């Protein structure tokens, strides 16, 4: 039976503080620390019988894995680590299309900032799991691709790629995913961070292709609260960040139809991913991204 990871309730992160932190690495570490402090046992574990090394005990480690004899000899708490029997391969795909540059709060995070932070945190988590982690930057085409490796230097490369501004790109998520698919040769976990503002059919085709290559897919849909609640007032000109199109409208008169259409879109998106055996999480930029990390760990445990 495949084990599942049941996560206890975690103290939410201060999203304002998170947005104020400088640098992607610092953000990722803050997220990681917040995530780990909520766990009663360490997420770092392997199931191989081949001893690999000792390491210092960390709060949350399984006490069963303490080497009591070594403790008797050296008076230090050390945990036995084993070489994982199967090293996971994780590809984090980040959508950098113009719609992801939206942020309703003046000082808050844009959806792209949020996606980068989640991607960096996931990569950090994966690297600590000794998993090989890679990156695909999806825009009008496959903007960047980093092959999965488990080294620390790879992690730093990934972070720097994430921080690179791709400029204004066309919104072609499905096409760029199709482009990235041949580069992901071995089976792994593909984490897609996007708002999924894409036509369903091309997206479904791309997803089908990833699943055909036996990848496990985690879809993390990142949305701004203003998109979900549509809490504007009065009357104004709405400007499409992707196409530059403009529409003058009174918010009160279009709110109802917007919320209905948007709700349908969310439902369709969720069902599409779940129909193809993918995990799906909706992340709001005004809330912490811990559910994303939990989803990753849950999927990983499922695979192991």
């Amino acid at each position: 039976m495949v084990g599942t990871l049941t996560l206890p309730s975690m103290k939410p992160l201060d999203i304002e503080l998170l947005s104020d932190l400088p640098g992607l690495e610092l953000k990722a570490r803050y997220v990681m620390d917040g995530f780990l402090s909520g766990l009663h046992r360490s997420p770092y574990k392997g199931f191989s019988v081949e001893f690999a090394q000792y390491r210092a005990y960390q709060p949350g480690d399984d006490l069963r894995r303490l080497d009591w004899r070594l403790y008797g000899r050296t008076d230090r708490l050390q945990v036995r680590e084993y070489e994982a029997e199967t090293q996971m391969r994780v590809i984090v795909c980040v959508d950098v299309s113009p719609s992801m540059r939206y942020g309703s709060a003046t000082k808050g995070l844009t959806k792209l900032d949020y996606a980068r932070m989640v991607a960096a945190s996931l990569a950090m988590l994966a690297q600590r799991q000794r998993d090989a982690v890679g990156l695909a930057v999806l825009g009008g085409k496959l903007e960047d691709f980093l092959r999965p490796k488990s080294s620390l230097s790879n992690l730093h490369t990934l972070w720097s790629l994430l921080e690179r501004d791709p400029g204004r790109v066309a919104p072609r998520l499905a096409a760029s995913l199709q482009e990235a698919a041949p580069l992901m040769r071995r089976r792994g976990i593909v984490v897609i961070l996007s708002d999924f503002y894409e036509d369903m059919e091309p997206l479904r085709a791309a997803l089908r292709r990833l699943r055909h290559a036996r990848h496990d897919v985690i879809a993390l849909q990142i949305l701004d609260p203003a998109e979900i609640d549509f809490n504007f007032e009065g009357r104004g000109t709405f400007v499409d960040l992707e196409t530059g199109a403009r529409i003058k409208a009174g918010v009160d008169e279009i709110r109802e139809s917007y919320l209905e259409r948007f709700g349908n879109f969310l439902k369709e998106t969720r069902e599409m991913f779940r129909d193809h055996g993918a995990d799906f999480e909706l992340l709001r930029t005004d809330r912490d991204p811990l559910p994303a990390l939990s989803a990753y760990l849950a999927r990983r445990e499922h695979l192991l």
Partner: protein
Amino acid sequence: MNWLFPGFLMAAALVGVPVVLHFLRGKPRTIIPFPTLRFLGPSALRETRQHRIRRWLTLLMRCALIALLAAAFARPFWAKPPTLNGKAMVIAVDNSYSMTAVDHWAKLKVWAASQLGGLKAGDRAGILLMNPTPRWLVPMTPNLEQVRTAMATLTPGWQTTHYDPALRLAGQTLAQTAAKQRTLVWMGDQQRLGWSGVDFAKPLPAGVKILFPDELLPVAQQAAITRLQVGGTDRKFVVEAAVRLYEPVVAKRTLVLREGTKELARQEIELNVGDEQKVAISIPKEPTQTELALTATLEPVDNLPADDSAYAVFQGEQGSKILLDTVEMAENEADYLAHAVDSMGVVQEQPFRRGDLPAGAWPVRSIAMLRGEEAFGSERAKCLDQFLADGGTVWIWVTGEPQQKSWLERHQVKITPLPLPGAELHHWQDFDVESPLLSDYAQNGLLPLLRIEFEAGWSLQSPGLEGLANWENKTVAAGVLGVGRGRVVLFGFPPSRAASNWPGQSSFVPFLHQMLTALSAQGSLTPVLRVGQAIVLPAEKGTWSKIAGSGALAPQEIAHAAVTPEEPGIYEYRSGNNVWRYAVNLDTQESDLTPWPQKSDWLALQSKDPNPEMKAVADAATQEQGSQQNNWWWMVALALVLLPMELALANRTSL
């Protein structure tokens, strides 16, 4: 489409206001960046499109609303070109009392009726009364039966004749009538008085023909009572009458004086044509008798009976009397006030007689003029206060003497001497020309008053004082104050040469006379009244009735009113124990029946151009059609329908 008041169309320019507002408010200022419009695309586009349509519709409705209201006020109508057909006739009726001479009225009515008989169905006619000012008894109408009925029941009045205003109005009315033949039927006796003032060089408008009656027979016997006054002493009434003979050269008449049906006296008078014979008749009187309502008639009755009667009233022992206090004159001073009042005794229109302040109660129907201290002493002051309480009128010339000052202060009047004049003497100014006391005098100009120079004077100050004139420092120089039921006229200077140069100027006596006339006309004295002249009755509620003269008048309860008697006679206003009587007489100018000497003059009024001027006809037709068509109502109704629709739409587009 034509417009009755096209000036209102200018208001249609206001449509620019909503248009400007539309374009000023047209674009939403808020820009809302949004990740994708895919979820609000169709509905927002639809809403935006609908919103735009609604806004344009609102603008359209607002413009339409303004345009409709402007058009409605401009009174639109469909004008049809006028066509000339039928006949139009105006019968101008001289309804003055001279028309009652001999059989003039009856003959002229028959003649006018015969002219009316020439009209057929479809023709139009009207009756215009000439006096006292032109007025339509029957406006121009195709209902000839109505005109004939009015003509048959028409009776002459008691006014005097003025032809010119009626002549021009009738001519203008006919000129604007769309008829082939337009006739002005002149039903008048061609009296010289009537034609005076007519510009014979200015003929009637084109196409208007005037018809005059055949010459009337001249009157053989005509005399009139031109003046009747009655005064009184302790033992007798003194009646002064003037009688003028117009025809024949010499005649005898008997002047009979009656009170009601009781004959009081009669006197035979020998008259010469053109002369005014004055007679004075004494009538014995009981000591207790204080009133007399007198009717004088000439016998035998002549060809114009209307002016053979006259009326006069005597009310109270001192009717029309000015009570003057006695003052000691300084050296080189004369009693200018006494001289002025004495001079008013000989004028015809409103004579006044001077009397001394009585030792006892002052007769309330007189005017007391006080300029010294005599009347303000302790005993006299009681009479003065009682006189005012009973409704008397007092004219006080302020001298600042202690008892006068004390009495004034008791009645809350504070007097302050003017500063000694410098190089420029004092003047009074800011005259209240609307005041009834000054309005008559002001009609002839205030320049003489403005030129008066004052060496000394007093500023008047009182809470209830209504100013008549101010000093140059804006304090009150003359004013009127209500005390009890009476009135006090205050002049802030004495009537002496030491105070001002006025008593020696020519404006002094006329001004005093006008003021006294105005004061007496307001109730305290008996004014001389003519038919058609308004009488302002006392403020108390009372009964208005006629006690002598031709015709009857049902008693009427009235208050705060002015009445205009249309017939001569003696009228009475009774309020409780107070009785006011008014003798109303004819204006005897009308008694002179002499016709205009040259018939050719009035024949010259005949229009030189027999063809009507179409422009005047078209203008009149346009006016008539414009006032008859109610298109503007439909426009207002449409605007009222549009208004709620506009409001509903505007509410939906106000976001």
